């Protein structure tokens, strides 16, 4: 049984209701439904949940922390303004990824034509244990990050959304305005090119 009673409920507590003895985070659809009612704290819960993965998507697309941060801020503010237009609470996360991707593509289009992207990330603390292996993995990840910058922006977006962020082919297709088949083709080409660029590491 829950120990929380109406009298103990506090507007500042986090969204962690007690269900039985198991503490469960509220699901996205619940937070989205509340945010659509104007509940700012529910929206903050969604921001906290998704700002990091979206920031990382932006960082890998743009190779700039500042630009990635700007994109994430714009996306969350725009989404807040347009929440009323969302038909299905369950479509929220796909919407976030779509808007982030498209903003990144716009930023890249607005940049001077193909300045070679010099990634400014990859200062990665090594996880504990197996330092040599960790160093090797970090170096490979850095190499992959560099290789990504040599794909076209659209290819990079498709590959990242699928292979790193686990989004569905159908969702990616809507995002980039192509068919799911075309997206599969783009990802296959991206994979072949990346594998070729990773050849020195094998």
């Amino acid at each position, binding site marked *: 049984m829950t120990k929380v009673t109406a009298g103990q409920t506090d507007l500042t507590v986090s969204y962690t209701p007690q269900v039985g003895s198991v503490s469960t985070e509220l699901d996205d659809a619940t937070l989205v439904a509340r945010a659509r009612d104007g509940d700012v704290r529910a929206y903050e819960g969604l921001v906290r949940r998704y700002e990091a993965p979206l*920031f990382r998507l932006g960082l890998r697309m743009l190779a700039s922390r500042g630009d990635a941060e700007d994109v994430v*801020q714009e996306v969350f503010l725009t989404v807040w303004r347009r929440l009323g237009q969302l038909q299905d609470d369950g479509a929220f996360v796909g919407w976030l990824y779509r808007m982030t991707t498209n903003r990144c593509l716009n930023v890249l289009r607005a940049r001077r034509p193909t300045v070679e992207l010099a990634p400014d990330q990859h200062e990665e603390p090594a996880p504990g244990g197996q330092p040599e292996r960790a160093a090797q993995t970090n170096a490979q990840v850095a*190499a992959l990050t560099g290789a990504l910058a040599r794909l076209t922006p659209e290819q990079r977006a498709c590959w990242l959304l699928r292979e790193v962020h686990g989004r569905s082919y159908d969702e990616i297709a809507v995002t980039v305005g192509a068919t799911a088949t075309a997206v599969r083709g783009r990802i296959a080409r991206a994979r*072949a090119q990346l594998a070729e660029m990773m050849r020195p590491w094998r």
Partner: protein
Amino acid sequence: MAMNAPGYALPCGRDVETAWERLDAVAAGLADAHERTCPHCQGAHASLVVLRDATAGLAADEEAPPPGLTGRIMAAVRAEVGRREILDLPCEEPGRARISEQAVASVLRFAADTVPGVRARRCRVTPAGDDRQAIDVHLTLAVGYPAFAATALAAVRERVTAAAGARIGVRLNRLDLLVDDIYPA
């Protein structure tokens, strides 16, 4: 680029995508006769294994956004919060006390959330007719399955009614409950 556009065929006639799909099979020793001897397929296999490992590393990378990003986003959001309906609160002294629909909805949702197996979702609050100190509430709920019990809706009604009176100070004229989703619990 050494690989041939557009199909990324290897010089032996197979293509990179096939090598990708067969990565696990080959690693498990299930390579076919061609794969066992073809240097192109073996080379593609080795490169793809490296790519797959590096991709896993990239996916596991938890590089954090700049500190304060949440705060900056939420400051911008709060600056744009549009208050909808404003309700009067009982006030015996001169002057007015009013509360926004969003604030009322938050309090009522918290009350409903205290019932096990229930998560409040949308909550619409409107003044009940001409009485500015009574409200009609339409509350949408998700219920946990199988934790949800039939008595829970009665408990929601009881707690929401109590919260309206005790926490906000308005009378709950009408409460419509709509269960429109379930979640695993």
